[in-house]
């Protein structure tokens, strides 16, 4: 491309990179059984939860960090992380007026106004600041429908029997290294419970904001939809720019019973590190949904654009007959980012169906890998899977890798997988420009066209956001 075009593009700084100056309570760095007990006592947790944490911690000590993903990162020093940091405003306030205004301002700056006048009218938001939930909007309205939407810490106090029943039932404490760590030290996250037959009247959203530099972030989210219930949930997250790496190891568990459905969307815009790969979040997430009921459905939709290293495989275990799992993903890597992400669809029940649409965009010197597993168990009679993994390469220094694992034991199950690659060529860009379409808009058009199938799955409000986010992240990468 002409040098005039590229150098004229101002590399826009990550606009969420600010830090909120607020008093935060932290405990000393390092992890030990005492730290786990301390976290549990600070949160005033019941016995069952302390046992859950300790069991997971002891299992974590026996495990080794996985190294099979195509990632290269310097060893994480687990003793050099703070495992608990909370804004001093500890107790969740009864009304938003009592919340520290600096916190409210933070979220407003991020485009998530929480105050009554300004909040989005059709989305209930649980705002989590440094892993502590500080406010949840529309709780009363939701309670009228029997919907419980609150932080996990509150759920543990107000609905301990529900938490005890479902926590760890989808992702057990010993499932993998990062899930074990999370199970031991998780601080907070969202809890959603939709009772029988209820279609949640609003979209629910949790917005995570990391503020402290050297804390690890260990959110835990649990969403349960009883028979015939349904909910659409959106997870958003941002963090300031620091020049050391931060660890984010979250666990999300979804449970759907007969005829229930959960749609879980993520638009992730962590700080990815600067152009030279310094700083940025290490994002290791275990997300799994269990379609326990017949005809139940779980849909994962994600737009990943940030994080220095991403390791996440939202999965569905399709147990119920005729249950459906879906995975729609756009993963963009630029500069020196690395992503190893994909999904696992485990077909257990009969006539289960899964659809995977994965779009990877690799720019700069980044490495973007899709790693998926489709497994047809012996009882998955009449099951069907369709997967499509497409990669868009921008420039010739980024890598796009595809590793789809297919395992089948059931002759009456059908698996179909396709993958292809494409790129943004200088000729195509020039063609659009010669028709009056600006460089950035042209790139954006082509990238959006590529991602169309996935963006169509996002809740409406966020599809436009996703378009803009991608355009922003790709600045300076073409040419």
């Amino acid at each position, binding site marked *: 491309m002409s040098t005039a075009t590229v150098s004229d593009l101002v590399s826009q700084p990550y606009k969420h990179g600010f830090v909120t100056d607020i008093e935060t309570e932290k405990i000393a760095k390092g992890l030990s059984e005492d730290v786990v007990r301390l976290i549990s006592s600070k949160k005033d947790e019941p016995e069952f939860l302390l046992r859950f944490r300790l069991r997971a911690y002891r299992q974590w000590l026996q495990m080794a960090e996985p190294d099979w993903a195509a990632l290269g990162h310097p060893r994480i020093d687990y003793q050099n992380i703070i495992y608990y940091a909370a804004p001093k405003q500890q107790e969740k306030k009864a009304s938003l007026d009592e919340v520290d205004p600096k916190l409210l301002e933070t979220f407003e700056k991020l485009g998530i106004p929480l105050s009554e006048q300004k909040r989005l009218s059709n989305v209930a938001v649980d705002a989590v600041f440094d892993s502590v939930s500080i406010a949840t909007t529309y709780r009363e309205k939701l309670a009228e429908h029997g919907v419980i939407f609150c932080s996990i810490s509150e759920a543990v106090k107000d609905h301990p029997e529900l938490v005890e029943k479902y926590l760890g039932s989808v992702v057990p404490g010993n499932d993998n290294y990062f899930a074990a760590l999370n199970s031991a030290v998780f601080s907070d996250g969202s809890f959603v419970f939709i009772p029988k037959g209820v279609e949640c009247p609003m979209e629910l959203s949790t917005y995570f904001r990391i503020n402290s530099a050297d804390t690890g972030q260990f959110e835990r989210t649990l969403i349960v939809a009883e028979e015939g219930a349904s909910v659409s949930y959106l997870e958003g997250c941002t963090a300031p720019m620091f020049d050391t790496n931060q660890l984010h190891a979250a666990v999300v568990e979804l449970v759907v019973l007969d005829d229930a459905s959960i749609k879980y969307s993520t638009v992730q815009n962590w700080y990815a590190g600067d152009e030279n790969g310094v700083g940025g979040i290490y994002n290791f997430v275990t997300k799994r949904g269990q379609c326990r009921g017949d005809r139940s459905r779980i849909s994962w939709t994600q737009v990943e654009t940030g994080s220095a290293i991403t390791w996440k495989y939202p999965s569905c275990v399709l147990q119920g007959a005729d249950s459906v799992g879906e995975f729609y993903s756009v993963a963009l890597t630029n500069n020196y980012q690395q992503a190893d992400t994909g999904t696992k669809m485990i077909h257990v029940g009969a006539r289960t169906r899964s659809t995977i649409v994965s779009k990877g965009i690799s720019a700069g010197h980044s490495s973007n890998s899709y790693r998926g597993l489709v497994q047809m168990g012996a009882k998955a009679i009449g099951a069907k899977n369709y997967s499509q993994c497409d990669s868009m390469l921008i420039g010739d220094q980024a890598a796009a890798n595809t590793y789809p694992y*297919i395992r089948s034991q059931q002759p009456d199950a059908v698996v179909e997988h396709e993958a292809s690659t494409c*790129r943004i060529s200088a000729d195509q860009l020039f063609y659009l420009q010669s028709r009056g379409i600006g460089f950035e808009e042209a790139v954006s058009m082509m990238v959006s066209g590529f991602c169309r199938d996935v963006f169509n799955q996002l809740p409406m409000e966020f599809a436009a956001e996703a378009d803009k986010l991608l355009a922003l992240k790709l600045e300076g990468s073409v040419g």
Partner: protein
Amino acid sequence: MPALALPKTAAWLAELAGEPLPGRRQEDWRFTDLAPLQAVAAELWSGPDPFSQCSLPGGISRIAPAQAQLLLDQGLQATGSSAAWPVRLNRGASPHFLALRVSGSVEPLQLTFDAAAGQGLLALQLLLVLEPGASLELLLHHGSRAANATSLVTVAQLGSGAKLNLGVLAPGDARASLLSHLAISQAPASELQLTTAVGGWALSRFEPRICQSEGAALSRLRALQLVAGQELADTHSQVQFNGPDGQLDQLHKVVADGAGRSVFNGAVRVPRSAQRTNAAQLSRSLLLSDRARVDTKPELEIVADDVKCAHGATVSRLQQNELFYLQSRGIAADQASRLLLRGYCDEVLRELPAAAASAHPLQLLLRERP
């Protein structure tokens, strides 16, 4: 390491290779159980040198041992094969050796390796150097009728404009094992047709590794795996483009019946220098019983951006509507199945070198099916 005494054969194999048998923790061996190898008698094959009997047509000459060794090592290095376990095993087992140089167009050649003529581990090394413009059609015919193991390492170098049509027909025995590693380097403008048809072995592992040293070549791979009983067939292929304008057309087909297990891992690597690569890979698996297992993983690693790379994988059973169509024309169900199966397998078998036809490959491979 636990202090148990390893089975005699496993220890012996480990000594030959200089390394213990690969285990499940290694990604490349995750689904491949090497137990059948250990059922082999811990001795080198006692039969006659399979290479001594072959007569070479005009245009093919033998390469002197010293030079052959050099070329062999070079060939293995070009595809990153030197440290692969089956290659190490092969080297340690003092293999019978044949090194051939081909100039111009020559008559088709066939080599037969029937492990049934002896017992133990039959180790073979085959080096083929095709001069620029040369062309060779070669059929390798493996066989066995007892708990033998065959270890073959084939290294081929195709000069500019050379053409190699290499077919492997390997009907095995439910007690026998076959390890075959192919390291093939292609110069620009060369053409490779590699067709492998495997069936009936307790354990078979094919590792075709192709390197287009400067791109601009054509690699066409066709493979058929038939597994039934308790058999395990494994293909781990790798195609690397080290220059621009290369082409790959790969088709891997599987029929899995009984409690058979099929493993396929097809890696395609397109680094930055390999612009305008056109690579297509298709993996198709038919599951005929509910105890059979298929594990397939196509793999694409791409950095160059001006490329066309696609892969597809399907796993299913024989199509209901196709079966029904044949039945509605008066053909009984099981015969209809056989007809469809034959058509499915034929897509690969008909690409074997002409010499294979007289051996009736499909019948051969389907021998002793339950």
